[in-house]
């Protein structure tokens, strides 16, 4: 069955007829062509598909799109503004927090969720927030450094 679902995706209101069994990741990637959100495993194990739903990090690969009716969804595509990278995107770039880049959208969205709740996290808090996000390239040290740098930069800018 399909049903009409209202969503707000990266600030834009959208209304769509969505099949009951469609996963949010399938909807974002296939229907909306927002391919920044990645599918890295067969369900719930890697964090590559992390998006923000109503400001909190969630896994799009194990979320049914039609349960998100009325929700605000943010993906990596909505992070930069007017061609400028967000603080986290810049920090990942400058601190080599990204190598092949496959895990990066999920890492950045999970980090964005953390910094909104806790703008000055310590390393243990960063590790706890990113515990569900797997990276096969960087060894994590530079990812943690990137999140710390973004937090410091935002604190400096405020």
């Amino acid at each position, binding site marked *: 069955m399909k049903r009409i679902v209202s969503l707000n995706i990266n600030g834009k209101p959208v209304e769509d007829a969505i099949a009951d069994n*469609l996963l949010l990741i399938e909807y974002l990637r296939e229907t909306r062509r927002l391919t920044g959100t990645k599918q890295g495993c067969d*369900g719930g194990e890697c964090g590559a598909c992390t998006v923000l739903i109503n400001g909190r*990090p969630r896994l799009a690969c194990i979320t*049914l799109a039609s*349960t998100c009716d009325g929700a605000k969804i943010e993906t990596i595509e909505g992070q930069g503004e007017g061609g400028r990278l967000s603080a986290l995107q810049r920090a990942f770039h400058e601190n080599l927090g990204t190598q092949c880049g496959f895990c990066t959208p999920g890492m950045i969205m999970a980090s964005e969720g953390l910094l909104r709740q806790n703008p000055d996290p310590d390393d243990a808090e960063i590790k706890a927030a990113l515990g569900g996000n797997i990276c096969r390239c960087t060894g994590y040290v530079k990812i943690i450094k990137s999140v710390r740098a973004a937090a410091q930069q935002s604190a400096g800018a405020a």
Partner: protein
Amino acid sequence: MSANLPEFNLVKPSSIAEALAAFRDQPHAKFCAGGTDLIPNMRHGLFEVETLIDLGQIVGFDAVTINGADIELGAGISLSKLVGRADIRERFPAIVKACEKVAGLSHREAATLGGNLCLETRCLYYNQSEWWRKSNDYCLKYQGDICHVAPRGNRCRAAFCGDLAPAFMVHRAEVELVSLNGARRLPLADLYVEDGAAHLALQPGEILASVHLPAARARSTYGKICQRGAIDFPQAGVAVSCRKEAGVLQFELAFTGTNSKPILLEYREPLGPKTDADSYFEALEKQVQKSVSPQRTTTTAPHYRRLAVAALAVRLARGLV
């Protein structure tokens, strides 16, 4: 149309009564709360349903109600919300410790208390893709004739691996179950049955509506043995509570990951000022080893898990003294 999930209809009741009625109309339906266990299992083809009843839209399903000496937690409360409650952390430390050890943060945002307590059992031979299971002739839990873990036995040995059940058990929690026949309340331990293919005492269509905790405080803690620090089910998990009665200490312990149901051990030996602590804990360690029976449901050897869970239990119990 999804490329990863079979077709089904989703029903979104806004009350428990509507959810029960939806099940009466579709008796082969399944309830879905946060979906963090159910959806991956569906993606692996572990079951198919015509109708999924989404418990996520039920109004007030995540409420916390304090009635004098009784604290009632709605089964729909998310694990993130539970972790964030200072009153639960203060009164029931093991519960919050266990919540913090479930999966990763993004799972815990969606995952619910009810879903964790009603978690499917797990096994090396079951939580696999369709082609893997088919090439192994399936198993007793799904379409097959034997349990690959204990081929000579006549039941499924899949292990219960939810982190929260032991923590709630050592705080003497009770669960409220509702069905079209009415409501009933049981000690949490009675929700479980030692059978990996049918480990819940829920009637078809019965919903775990809430969990009751007595206000009485007890010192408590939770620890788990796993291969990774996050997103890893317990190889074994232990909750311990400690109460002082008539000048002596008594421990209650509960275990997950070792059997098809969580195991409660009410250790009635008192630990007093004159007891020799070393021999007391040695005896406790032996008792724990006897109480659990890990099987070949994970890649870690059962014998190691039995020794490790007992050693962890003693370490945690000593920490509460």
